[in-house]
């Protein structure tokens, strides 16, 4: 097994753990962290394939993914803080109403 195959396998395992986190955890913060884990797994695959194909484009895409993740975290955490102010909870099972 070469390094590309191993990192691809590691990436799919990490992505699956992230999916399980989104499906199993009830706290909005934990769900959000699991999404970050999935983004990171995708980045690992990008970098390993960029290494395999000897091209820089994969690394540039990872840079863009990181920038989008930063924007997403800023907005997402602002939403969580706002929801916590009204509901006093980050448990997604209690956030089923579509009004404030």
């Amino acid at each position: 097994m070469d390094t590309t195959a191993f990192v691809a396998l590691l990436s799919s395992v990490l992505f699956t753990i992230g999916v399980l986190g989104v499906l199993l955890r009830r706290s909005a913060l934990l769900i959000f962290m699991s999404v970050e884990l999935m983004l990171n797994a995708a980045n690992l695959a990008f970098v390993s394939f960029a290494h395999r194909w000897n091209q820089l484009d994969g690394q540039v895409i990872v840079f863009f993914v990181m920038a989008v993740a930063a924007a997403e975290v800023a907005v997402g955490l602002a939403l969580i803080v706002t929801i916590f102010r009204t509901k006093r909870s980050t448990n997604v099972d209690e956030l089923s109403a579509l009004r404030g």
Partner: protein
Amino acid sequence: MADLIVLVLLGAVSVASALGLLLSRNAIYAALFLVLNFGVGAVIYLLLNAPFLAVVQVSVYAGAIMVLFLFVIMLLGAERLSPAEDPPGASFQRPLAIGLGAALLGLAAYVLFIRQPVAIAPATPIDSSPTAVGLALFGDYLFPFEVISVLLLVAMIGAVILTRDR
């Protein structure tokens, strides 16, 4: 070969910290497990000839993003996670989620390993120094780069408007 041994060790730490994130009962511990995971990812980037991304991973992901997470967790006082009891009528969710996760992993392994990839002609190793990445960013990828900067500005304004006191 030495690379692969180091990678296997790093991969074990990476998967263990991801499982720690999945199973921990305290949001602070979960965030710290994720920091460990991102740090291991940075070392893997170094092994894969991506030094610029390794530094960005540490400073942006493990630094800025996770500090924001820890800040919000402590600000809200949401460290203690309620024990994960299933809501009424949803006890099927946990086995279903584990089954779907196993199916996803199997699918990824099938696509990556069973279907044979096309043969790759070995190319000459490229220069992946920060200089080369910067030239690519401001050459071929100039327009996406500018779009990203607008996106970050929009996200910043959105976060300020969402959290301001009314």
